[in-house]
């Protein structure tokens, strides 16, 4: 031993239990900070990845820009990529067609391939010469095309253009859903196409990708001023800008504000936890510091000893905390990759969040250094006399006696242990409260998620086969045949009868009738607000859909007027049928554009009323591992005459966004709840450790095990109750502020009292308190009374 500070590792070994607790507390705080910041970092990365796939990697879109101006924009030092971009037949109203199928024509520059990752070139090259085009994979498969093949594009003026294929780009959700082909070509080639019936003109729209390190908003303003582009011709990729902290959108700024507030709260929670732990640790060893003073250590040396000791704990606690935090981030990222490989397959398996690591390490070490100051001064102030006189038990000097009149002695002592020292009580309750505040503040993210990301409905199909004239013309046997295709999970068809009239007491209404089979009735259960679904399933009555005060009600009778000429059935003339509304749904997958009543019935009832037996739409859900082979199998069974809609990619978009949000939002809440639980358990354990000799004396004079449990439980409950109270007092207003900024401001939804969140965190606190009591009580029971009273 060369220096008195070399005593630190020796002291650590002797005070192993206290050191372990302090290290655990520091490690947990660092874990909390690393996990939260790391998850936030990963969430931003995943949002960034989604924004690039869904909307492209452009930051600004500028309309009415000439070719010369576009070139100048592309040459600016802060511009990474710039492309002109135009489309034709986007709404399928112009009838550009390839092999009789509608085609959307896109004209852009080669740099667009960098800017729109979804349109990345999977094979071949970007056309540099006249007559070259790149086409989408669906078209390649449908027409069995190869590189260099020629294709004929029918243009609206009746002429045909021949192009040769130079490359293939990947599938785009929009093309698959509309079941159309996509052709992309150079802007120069694109401009040769006629504009008859065009939805726009050939004025170039320019997409620009800037360097993420420049002030993008300032760059956009400069471009606007330079080329006199009005605000209404400028669009911004707000989500992408938001993920790199460059959005100036007011709702995004509000979200930034809330994120900063939450980051600050997380940091403060960490500081509180560490400070509480160090204070408790030092108080327990007052006698030891008095002994150091006795042996000749100066006040400065003792203070230095305490500070260095705290940093010594960091040597193991900080790497452990950051490591654990990173492991949680990796686990969540792995779950994300597993659930939505299409979106998050690019995320690294063991991605390092430097923000999380830096936040955890810096805040951890800085807090420990800062938090060690006060205990160091306290330790330095210990009189040498306290060590030798035996009065340095480390117990807090009480100012007021426990209230043994109102409570039994064990309860009174427990409560007094919690409330006796005001400073300790405030520190402990505040640190409990902070966990609750954090939970309440972060729980707003769940509401944000529910508003921002609409989950995929259970009835959402992957593939839909639709009758071209919306009639009941799809053979019901096709549905059974589709069930036999490998990779098909569920097939459910619907028949539609339009332009019906129903006469009710309130007058005549227009309606359309839809048939459901068992699956669809099963999904409708959750939406039933009145009546019975079972009756309708058995063919007794119909279901109506609620749309306001004027809606049909359960039990209401009506007369359905069937116009046999217009409806699907056979025969002609009008026919009236009595119907009963047996149930009312709050919602359904369809909407009525003209305000018609939507009536739902069983297939048997539909057949009896409308006469049609076949389907108008068949929806298909696929197994998770189903591939393009399954889709091809379905397509070949259906034939060419049906409208085929492939929603797999757009469903994947929705699922990807939802998974990402859910995993990180619930991840945040889970980590906070976990930290809250650990913190409560650790705090109670430390509090009990500090009084171990006192508990020994109590046992010596006759306190039994049950009374010990009650005493520790009363102390824990006092912290818990006051912590919940403080947590609610500060957390509920904070919840309001966060809700207002993140949700009310954006969607107009009014704030609600967060009763569910409070119940959840209340349950977490209650369970943690139970576990927090169990451990220390077990230790007290195992405690040697002789050792405790002998001061060993």
């Amino acid at each position, binding site marked *: 031993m060369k220096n008195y500070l070399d005593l630190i590792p020796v002291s650590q070994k002797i005070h192993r239990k206290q050191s372990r607790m302090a290290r655990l507390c520091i490690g947990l705080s660092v874990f909390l900070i690393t996990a939260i910041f790391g998850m936030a970092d990963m969430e931003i990365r995943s949002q960034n990845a989604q924004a690039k796939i869904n909307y492209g990697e452009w930051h600004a879109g500028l309309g009415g820009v000439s070719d010369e101006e576009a070139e100048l924009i592309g040459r600016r030092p802060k511009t990474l990529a710039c492309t002109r971009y135009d489309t034709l037949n986007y709404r399928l109203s112009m009838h550009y067609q390839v092999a009789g199928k509608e085609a959307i024509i896109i004209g852009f520059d080669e740099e667009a391939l960098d800017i729109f990752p979804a349109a990345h070139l999977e094979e071949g090259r970007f056309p540099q010469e006249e007559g070259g085009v790149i086409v989408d994979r669906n078209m390649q498969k449908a027409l069995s095309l190869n590189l260099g093949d020629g294709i004929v594009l029918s243009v609206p003026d009746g002429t045909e253009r021949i192009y040769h294929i130079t490359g293939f780009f990947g599938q785009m959700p929009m093309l698959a859903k509309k079941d159309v082909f996509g052709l992309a070509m150079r802007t120069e080639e694109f401009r040769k196409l006629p504009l008859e019936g065009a939805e726009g003109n050939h004025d170039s729209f320019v997409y620009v990708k800037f360097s993420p390190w420049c002030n993008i908003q300032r760059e956009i303003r400069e471009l606007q001023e330079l080329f006199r582009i009005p605000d209404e011709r400028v669009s911004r990729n707000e989500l992408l800008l938001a993920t790199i902290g460059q959005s100036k959108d007011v709702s995004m700024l509000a979200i930034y504000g809330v994120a900063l507030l939450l980051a600050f709260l997380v940091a403060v929670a960490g500081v509180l936890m560490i400070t509480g732990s160090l204070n408790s640790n030092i108080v327990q060893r007052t006698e030891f510091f008095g002994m150091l003073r006795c042996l000749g250590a100066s006040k400065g040396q003792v203070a230095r000893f305490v500070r260095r000791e705290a940093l010594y704990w960091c040597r193991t606690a900080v790497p452990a905390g950051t490591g654990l935090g990173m492991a949680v981030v990796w686990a969540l990222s792995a779950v994300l990759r597993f659930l939505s490989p299409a979106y998050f397959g690019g995320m690294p398996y063991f991605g390092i969040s430097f923000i999380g690591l830096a936040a955890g390490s810096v805040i951890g070490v800085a807090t420990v250094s800062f938090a060690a100051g006060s205990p160091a001064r306290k330790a330095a102030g210990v009189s040498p006399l306290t060590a030798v006189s035996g009065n340095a038990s480390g117990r807090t000097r009480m100012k007021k*006696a*426990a209230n043994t009149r109102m409570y039994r002695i064990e309860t009174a002592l427990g409560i007094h242990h919690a409330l006796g020292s005001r400073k300790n009580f405030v520190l402990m309750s505040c640190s409990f409260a902070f966990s609750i505040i954090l939970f309440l503040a972060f729980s707003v993210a769940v509401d944000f998620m529910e508003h921002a990301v609409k989950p995929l409905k259970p009835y959402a199909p992957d593939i839909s086969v639709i009758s071209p004239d919306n009639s009941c013309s799809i053979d019901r046997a096709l549905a059974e045949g589709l069930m036999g295709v490998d990779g098909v999970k569920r097939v459910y068809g619907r028949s539609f009868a339009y332009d019906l009239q129903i006469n009710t007491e309130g007058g005549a209404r227009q309606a359309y009738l839809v048939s459901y089979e068992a699956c669809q009735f099963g999904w409708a259960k959750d939406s039933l607000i009145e009546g019975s679904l079972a009756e309708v399933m058995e063919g007794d009555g119909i279901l109506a859909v609620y749309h306001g005060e004027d809606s049909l009600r359960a039990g209401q009778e009506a007369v359905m007027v069937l116009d046999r000429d217009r409806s699907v059935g056979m025969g002609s003339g009008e026919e009236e049928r009595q119907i009963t509304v047996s149930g009312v749904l709050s919602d359904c997958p369809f909407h009525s554009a003209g305000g018609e009543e939507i009536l739902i019935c069983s297939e048997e009832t539909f057949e009896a009323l409308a006469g049609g037996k076949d389907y108008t739409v068949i929806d298909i859900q696929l197994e998770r591992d189903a591939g393009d082979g399954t889709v091809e199998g379905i397509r070949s069974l259906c034939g060419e005459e049906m409208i085929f809609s492939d929603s797999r990619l757009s469903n994947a978009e929705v699922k990807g966004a939802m998974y990402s949000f859910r995993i990180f939002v619930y991840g945040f809440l889970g980590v906070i709840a976990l930290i809250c639980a650990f913190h409560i358990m650790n705090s109670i354990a430390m509090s009990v450790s500090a009084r171990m000799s006192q508990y020994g004396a*109590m046992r*010596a004079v006759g306190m039994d095990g049950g009374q010990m449990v009650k005493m520790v439980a009363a102390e824990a409950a006092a912290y818990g109750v006051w912590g919940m109270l403080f947590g609610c007092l500060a957390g509920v207003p904070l919840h309001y502020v966060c809700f207002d900024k993140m949700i009310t401001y954006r969607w107009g939804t009014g704030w609600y009292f967060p009763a569910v969140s409070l119940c959840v965190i209340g349950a977490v606190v209650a369970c943690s308190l139970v576990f927090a009591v169990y451990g220390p009580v077990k230790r007290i029971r195992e405690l040697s009374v*002789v050792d405790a*009273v*002998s001061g060993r």
Partner: protein
Amino acid sequence: MEILQVRNLSKVYGEGESRVKALRDISFSMEKGEFAAVVGESGSGKSTLLHCIGGLDTPTQGKVFLEGEDLFALDEKRRTVFRRRNIGFIFQAFHLIDELDVEQNIAFPLLLDHQKPDRERIDELIALLGLGERRKHLPGQLSGGQQQRVAIGRALVMQPMLILADEPTGNLDSKSSRDVMDLLIRAARHFKQTVLMITHNDNLAADADRVFRVTDGCLKDMGGKTHEKLS
């Protein structure tokens, strides 16, 4: 009347080479109202003997009977309650409850037993202990001697049949030591209680009815006040 009976008490710590025989086959008994002192060198086994008699520590061998009740035949919970009601402890380091005032500290065993403290009895005790002016004071506001008097009050309040005192004057100055001793003797005489006290102080031991000497875990009965010299 025989209150305490110790039979063949032995206590062994550790195993193998580190095996230490703290108590070796100790047997003795005490009558009701008897005041005995235990003397001996540091580490001779005095405290271990006291802890075993009080049921705080478990002997390796032997039995302790208190008014005929075999202490170690009781389970932990019943032994705790038995100790609370029948044995009073006085420690060198007082071990008062910081959160309770003088009156509450004295009534502590009664409160643990969920008995309503008899105000007259508490007042009598406080007066006997000379703590009338300090009854609402917390331990932190008392001198060492006063704290030990509170501890004596706590040991007496349940009117236990046996009081065990482990160097009750070890932390006190000579005047306070004398006061505490007088008090202990007076209280024991007044309430007719049996007292077994460990002390290093030969003068204090001289006040006892009987003196035991513990040497290397063996107990030797040195007799009573008639003995002029203890060693």
